[in-house]
């Protein structure tokens, strides 16, 4: 039988170390909502989402109360809207109307974010997908809860550089469109390479083409718990350090597995995956950067950071995989800047640069995340940064992503404040040398060779 020490340990994790289930995300297929009449498609989308996810928030809260574990977010991910609107959307405004339908569905179901306003264009783009991409800035301006993700490359197909070029421009347009809200629109827009079909985390969640009718995916979190476990291990060997991280990751993931299976049962929707992630928030004690400091770095960005992060990421996976029957999504440590107090401090201290963050993304999920850059950064430079990050994902067969926020009217030394979970971010310097001739080339980067790995 469970003993008092074990009960105290679990409750300490929840009450003092910010252990929580970060999100229960219901993926919903919208393929059966597609058609030629836009109004009819809007009605079908709204009806289906509300029918499938109407009880999601209520069930999430019941589970939270039953087990005494916070379930912070309840969210929805849908089939990429570029496909659903391909017959009925004749122009950008039509796609924006679908975004407004998603917003309405989010309000009616009570979820805080809804993902899937996106496109998978890792090899080529159809005409309707080009129209869709141009609708993103306006769609993110007129909605509050809608998140957009665009997959522009994969290990199997290479990188669609036409899409990369367009996304640089779209990120700038989105920042301009949401100028009054500190470019918040860009916090809801992410560019992927090798995007997973079952990611529960926003802004990149969508219900992939390989998925069924509906599914429950759960994202866990607990950087504070890992940090606490390492607090008493200063000077300990790597073996001891790694064992401690693995054991903690196992325990955290078990909670995710419990919540996921319980939510799936209560909602009568299949359980999809648990995403083994250390997802920070701007709250004190909920920071991945603090774990890196606990491992032995003065600040993230110091020499040794990439190795420390590789170690952390790998141990989290090793501890987590046995704890869950199905693991998926992004799975690893997240290193967003604005959403992690320790990362913000590292930038402010001058320890962490964009280039070091890029190196760190080679060994962890997911990519250059929630980074404010000067508002006058050219679109071609943003495309260059995206291309670099996509190349890392393509060659290393991993998911990488870019979520950059051009701070319109601001420069290095200023900061952006998004509020809530999105946090705040100092504007980081960007290399000012041009890559416009490179980005100006048309076509795609071929898929990489799958042998001779060096």
């Amino acid at each position, binding site marked *: *039988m*469970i*003993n*008092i020490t*074990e*009960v*105290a*340990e*679990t*409750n300490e994790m929840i009450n003092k170390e910010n252990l929580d289930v970060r999100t229960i995300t219901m993926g919903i297929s919208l393929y059966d909502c597609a058609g030629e009449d836009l109004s009819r498609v809007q009605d079908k989308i709204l009806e289906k989402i509300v029918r499938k996810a109407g009880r999601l928030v209520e069930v999430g809260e*019941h589970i939270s*109360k*039953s*087990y*005494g*574990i916070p379930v912070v977010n309840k969210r929805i991910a849908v089939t990429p809207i570029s496909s659903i609107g391909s017959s009925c959307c004749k122009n950008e405004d039509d796609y924006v109307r679908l975004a407004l339908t998603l917003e309405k569905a989010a309000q009616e179901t009570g979820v805080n974010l809804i993902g899937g306003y996106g496109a998978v264009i890792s090899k080529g783009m159809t005409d309707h997908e080009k129209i869709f991409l141009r609708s993103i800035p306006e769609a993110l301006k007129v909605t509050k809860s809608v998140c957009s993700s665009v997959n522009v490359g994969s290990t199997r197909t290479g990188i669609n550089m036409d899409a990369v070029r367009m996304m640089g421009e779209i990120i700038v347009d989105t920042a301009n469109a949401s100028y009054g809200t500190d470019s918040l629109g860009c916090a809801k827009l992410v560019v992927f390479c090798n995007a997973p079909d079952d990611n529960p985390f926003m802004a990149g969640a969508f219900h992939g083409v390989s998925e069924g009718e509906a599914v429950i995916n759960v994202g866990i979190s607990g950087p504070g718990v890992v940090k606490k476990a390492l607090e008493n291990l200063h000077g300990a060997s790597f073996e001891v350090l790694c064992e401690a991280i693995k054991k903690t990751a196992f*325990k955290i993931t*078990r*909670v995710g*597995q*419990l919540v996921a299976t319980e939510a799936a049962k209560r909602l009568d929707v299949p359980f999809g995956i648990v995403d083994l992630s250390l997802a920070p928030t701007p709250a004190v004690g909920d920071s991945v950067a603090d774990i890196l400091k606990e491992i032995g770095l003065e600040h993230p960005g110091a020499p040794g950071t990439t190795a420390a992060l590789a170690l952390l990421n790998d141990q989290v996976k090793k501890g987590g995989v046995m704890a869950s029957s199905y693991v998926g999504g992004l799975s690893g440590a997240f290193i967003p800047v604005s959403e992690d107090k320790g990362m913000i401090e590292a930038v402010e201290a001058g320890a962490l640069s964009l280039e070091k963050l890029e190196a760190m993304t080679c060994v962890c999920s997911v990519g250059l995340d929630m980074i404010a850059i000067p508002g006058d950064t050219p679109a071609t430079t943003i495309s260059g940064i995206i291309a670099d990050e996509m190349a890392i994902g393509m060659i290393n067969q991993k998911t990488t992503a870019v979520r950059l926020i051009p701070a319109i009217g601001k420069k290095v030394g200023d900061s952006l404040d998004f509020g809530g979970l999105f946090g705040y971010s100092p504007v980081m310097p960007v290399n000012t040398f041009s890559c416009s001739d490179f980005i100006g080339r048309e076509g795609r980067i071929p898929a990489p060779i799958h042998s001779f790995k060096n």
Partner: protein
Amino acid sequence: MQKVIITVVGKDCVGIMAKVCTYLAEKQINILDISQTIVSGYFNMMMVADRQLDRGHFEDTAKELEELGNSIGVVIRMQREEIFNMMHRI
């Protein structure tokens, strides 16, 4: 059987157990096991109980226990047992 874990944490005083147990008896909640320690004047108690005969909703009982705790000056939580089993047992 519907096993729950009830924890009581707070400053020690006379009658904590009496009040908690009286409430549980009224609710037909059967106590299966109790562990208790007092460290530096702080009361730390854990009960394994079966609330199969409790006709109320889980959340109502949990809320009433929380309110009882507030009136005594301790924190009382009721959680379903599975979360602890999942985390600490393979």
